[in-house]
């Protein structure tokens, strides 16, 4: 057993906190893109993930993901987070549990972008709870656990391009298909209600992503440093790739495009950041920005209302990053990795990446579809037309985000106050 390293431990703990901060960042990234009447519904779904997935992960999710088990399922060795200390190394195992918990929290939260503006909160709550245990944890096991079948085959996924982004991306598309379109899509006015929120959320995501990627080195070391550097480069060049496409296609480079490009770059560099060189990151970022920007026009053509482009950004970005890792990986960066095709490695490196992505997409799509079907024919997935028209904030949560005028409202009534008055006192 390695001796505990306070430096490594400190970095992983800080990284865990940074990754947690990504979920509220994501909430604002998405929240700004929806209409004003739905912004609280979006923030709520993301905060709900912080609440529920923390619980699920503590009790069962971590065990299913990182228990010994077999190649496909970790089992219940760590059920209720028991027997953790036996696995202590350079960092206490609980630090790893906490770090991984934040990944489990944000992954289902990514899905909320495709189902925005129309999903029942009750169905969403049940969906993400089950999805986390039945989809996220098994796939994390396949790719990251030492007994996972894809891990043993040598799939490279440094910080979750496959496990997090491709996985959530395909689930988002499948759920959007079962949920159906928003009323009036695509001809209606679905402009974002607050683009500065989107950029604020992007900034938070970006900072958090340093924990996501560089923290995945699980130590304060050279690999962490290069992962951080590559993360910065990939995100930065993807901005350029995205706005270049916008300038050519639409005539103007937009701030929403710059934010979207940054996120697409962060997604694509995630599986690669600990394996590629900084020059590889430039290529991956530019390609991710350009290709994800082009991918945004697909949903309109195929008629899937992926409201906030989770498919174009996370699915396309995640798959692209995973495949490009097979080309740009180099042993110069990380001795624990491989040489990709561009560094003299065999095509089988790309083949293994494709297999890992394909298996993830297939499994995630099928189980997501089963969950969606089960909910559709029981609780129902979509809110009523009237509630959709009113907006989720008021219809589902009894709140509104903005009160820009004092007009309206008819004074204070409180169920609590009324309930406190005994019948005899009223008489």
């Amino acid at each position, binding site marked *: 057993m390695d001796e505990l390293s306070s430096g490594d431990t400190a970095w992983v703990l800080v990284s865990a906190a940074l990754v947690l901060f990504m979920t509220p960042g994501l909430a604002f990234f998405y929240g700004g893109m929806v209409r004003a009447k739905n912004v609280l519904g979006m923030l709520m779904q993301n905060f709900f993930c912080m609440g529920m997935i923390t619980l699920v992960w503590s009790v069962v999710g971590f065990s299913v993901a990182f228990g010994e088990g077999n190649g496909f399922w970790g089992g219940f060795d760590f059920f209720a987070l028991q027997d953790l200390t036996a696995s202590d190394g350079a960092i206490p195992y609980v630090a790893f549990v906490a770090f991984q918990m934040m990944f489990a929290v944000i992954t289902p939260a990514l899905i909320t972008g495709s189902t925005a503006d129309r999903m029942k909160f009750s169905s969403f709550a049940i969906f993400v709870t089950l999805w986390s245990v039945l989809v996220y944890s098994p796939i994390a096991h396949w790719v990251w656990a030492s007994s996972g079948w894809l891990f043993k085959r040598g799939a490279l996924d440094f910080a979750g391009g496959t496990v997090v982004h491709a996985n959530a991306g395909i689930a988002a598309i499948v759920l959007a298909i079962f949920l159906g379109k928003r009323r009036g899509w*695509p001809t209606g006015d679905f*402009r*974002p209600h607050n683009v500065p929120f989107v950029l604020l959320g992007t900034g938070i995501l970006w900072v958090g992503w340093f924990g996501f990627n560089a923290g995945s080195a699980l130590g304060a070391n050279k690999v962490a440093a290069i992962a951080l550097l590559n993360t910065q480069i990939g995100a930065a060049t993807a901005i350029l790739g995205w706005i270049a496409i*916008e300038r050519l296609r*639409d005539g*103007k480079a*937009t701030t929403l*495009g710059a934010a979207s490009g940054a996120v697409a770059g962060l997604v694509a560099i995630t599986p690669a950041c600990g394996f590629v060189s900084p020059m590889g990151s430039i290529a991956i970022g530019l390609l991710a920005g350009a290709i994800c920007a082009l991918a945004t026009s697909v949903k309109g053509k195929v008629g899937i209302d992926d409201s906030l*482009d989770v498919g*174009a950004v996370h699915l396309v970005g995640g798959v692209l990053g995973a495949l490009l890792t097979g080309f740009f990986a180099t042993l110069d960066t990380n001795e624990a990795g491989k040489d990709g095709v561009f560094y003299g490695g065999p095509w089988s490196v790309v083949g293994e990446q494709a297999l890992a992505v394909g298996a993830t997409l297939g499994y995630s799509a099928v189980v997501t579809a089963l969950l969606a079907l089960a909910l559709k024919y029981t609780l129902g997935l979509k809110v009523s037309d009237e509630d959709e028209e009113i907006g989720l904030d008021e219809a589902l949560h009894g709140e509104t985000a903005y009160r820009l005028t004092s007009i309206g409202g008819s004074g204070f009534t409180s169920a609590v106050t009324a309930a406190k008055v005994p019948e005899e006192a009223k008489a």
Partner: protein
Amino acid sequence: MKLVTAVIKPFKVDDVKTALEGIGVHGLTISEVQGYGRQKGHTEVYRGAEYKVDFVPKIKIEVVVDDEAVDELVTAITTSAQTGKIGDGKVWVVPVDAVVRVRTGERGSDAL
């Protein structure tokens, strides 16, 4: 008495207010409004999806004055709100039957 209504470009509000103070008009009501004239609106692009926005933000100014002050008022608004470019707005005048000051109950010209 007449109600003079002007719909103007938002950034001209301060100029108009100064001009009205200059001719002794000491009360006005403004509101944020949207609409379009001949210039129509603009186009916004979000991730490649284009939205045509027909309604342009404007400021509506309303002033009630005595009949004899109308011409001077309309001229003051027109000159102070003018940029010479499309979208400068409109001014129109309608008769007012009665005006009452809520605080005192004064009526007619006394209430202005």
